[in-house]
């Protein structure tokens, strides 16, 4: 099994803070597996996803994505799909369809492929009623589905999802779990952060547990759940 992501001794501190957001974090993620990032708010999950996707740069350490050094190369960005947890990151004067089409064009996706993927995804996540309406009137769940569609429209081999189930109803949460499993079955690497333990238990092959920016646990999902039997054990 090839390594999709290889991270070694990673450090990141924001200029506005006096402590590291991420400190000496090392882990790897494989193709054909789902890796869950867990930890309390402010533990460094989103920072890690921002670092892997090249939005921000690490202060120290190395990040390899699809065999490329994130600090030196940019072509790895064609291979990743990123969903960030910001609720407002849709262009509100555009519909979900137009938002996805915009990103599809940047990634150079063929229009037929775009239409096909949009159709499959919108049926899977029940988006047909609103997909062509302006997103300014969307609920939180609708926005989340639209962001998810936009992030995977180019069929990336590495999928980075920051709290993807936030705001989703029960049907869409089930659809999301199916979607993550489908990605894994297609030999994609999925890295997702979540606070939903059922979702993690259902989807994750491996888990990275962060505490104050440091690695508290990294290993298989089954070993994690045998080690941390109760929620209180995670504190």
């Amino acid at each position: 099994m090839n390594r999709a992501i290889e991270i070694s001794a990673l450090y990141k501190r924001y200029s506005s803070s006096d402590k590291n957001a991420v400190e000496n974090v090392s882990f790897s993620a494989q193709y054909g597996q789902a890796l869950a990032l867990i930890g309390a708010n402010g533990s460094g999950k989103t920072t890690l996803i921002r670092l892997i996707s090249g939005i921000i740069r690490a202060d120290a350490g190395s990040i390899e994505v699809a065999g490329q050094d994130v600090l030196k190369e940019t072509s790895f960005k064609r291979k990743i799909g990123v969903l960030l947890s910001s609720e407002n990151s849709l262009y509100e004067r555009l519909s979900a369809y137009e938002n996805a089409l915009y990103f599809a064009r940047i990634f150079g996706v063929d229009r037929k492929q775009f239409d096909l993927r949009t159709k499959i995804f919108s049926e899977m996540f029940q988006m047909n009623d609103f997909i062509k309406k302006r997103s300014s009137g969307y609920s939180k769940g609708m926005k989340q589905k639209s962001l998810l569609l936009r992030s995977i429209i180019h069929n990336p081999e590495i999928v980075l999802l920051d709290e993807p189930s936030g705001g989703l109803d029960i049907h869409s949460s089930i659809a999301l779990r199916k979607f993550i499993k489908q990605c894994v079955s297609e030999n994609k690497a999925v890295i997702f952060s979540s606070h939903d333990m059922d979702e993690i238990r259902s989807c994750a092959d491996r888990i990275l547990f962060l505490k104050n920016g440091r690695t508290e646990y990294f290993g298989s999902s089954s070993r994690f759940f045998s080690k941390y039997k109760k929620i209180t054990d995670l504190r």
Partner: protein
Amino acid sequence: MTDVIFTIFRKEMMDILRDRKTIMAGIILPVIFLPLSFILIGNDISADSDLSRKINISFSAKADGVKKLLSNSGKFNLVEGNWEENLVSGKIHIALTHVQEGDLILIDSRRTESIKASAVVAEYLDALYSKNNSKAEKRIGQKFMFGGGAERSFLSSLFPVIIAVFCAVAPLSAASDLFAGEKERSTIEPLFATPAGRFQILAAKYFAVSCIGIFQSFSFILGLFLSYAVSPEIFGKNFPFGALDILFIIISIIVLTALFASAEVIISSYAKSSREAQTLSIPFLMIVSFSAYHVMFLEVPFGAGKEIFIPVIGNIYALKSVLTGIYSSGEIFISFFVSCFYSFVFLFIAYIIFRRERMIFRS
């Protein structure tokens, strides 16, 4: 590379054009605002339409040709003697001389009647030259003597100022929305995770902001034509601008908007939010306003000197010259070149900001 720039540009244009506030402020407002301004000024001018019966004029030694023309008309009182003394003492409303570019009306800028008399005489001469097809004599310049009061001459002084301030204000909302606004809404981050490079994103957004200026130039020109339709007396009997003048106004608006947009892109790239971008833009708008105000008092026949190399001042001056009827190709070229040069410099600074994480994600 260009495909990505075009994709981002197209999306930004769609985004801007769906924003009602931007459309109102940038495109519809000039069409309404300009004619209203001209109606007010037109009413003021028409109230003094009987002034021509009382206009007293002195002539310099060079102005024998125009003196003969006006004396034959029987509508003006020709006053002999030293024109400067006559103008200072108030014996005459205006004086007339002749320079290489054409006739030059010398106005006592301290007196409203002198400015109004100048408009009447200019209109009379223009009609006369048009009738006689005297192309060489067509240009009629104005020179404000004794300082102060020049702001009362709308076309040659206030018009370039309005254009300059308008061009500075118009792209502000789009610039602050496309850069600081995107940072505020976190929409810029997913874009940074795509193959689109920072330069491509910056260039596309800058083109979109500047493009609004092109739309505005057309709305501004449309407003100008509407103004002529509703208040022709302010322009005289004939529309004072030819195709070349209109073309120059359009190019000036585009160049000025591109320059201001590049400066506003720096501010907006640095700002954390749209509101902060607009607050930080206030000193910039003040500099533009002061520059424009300064140019109002530069006397066109004598040139702007070294100030032609200063962006904004050079452009407004070149525009003022053209509207006064004096085309100086050297000054026009220099002013355009300087503006383009500074636009590139500003964009380079914006690019540096755009690449720096501490700047773009400033907290």
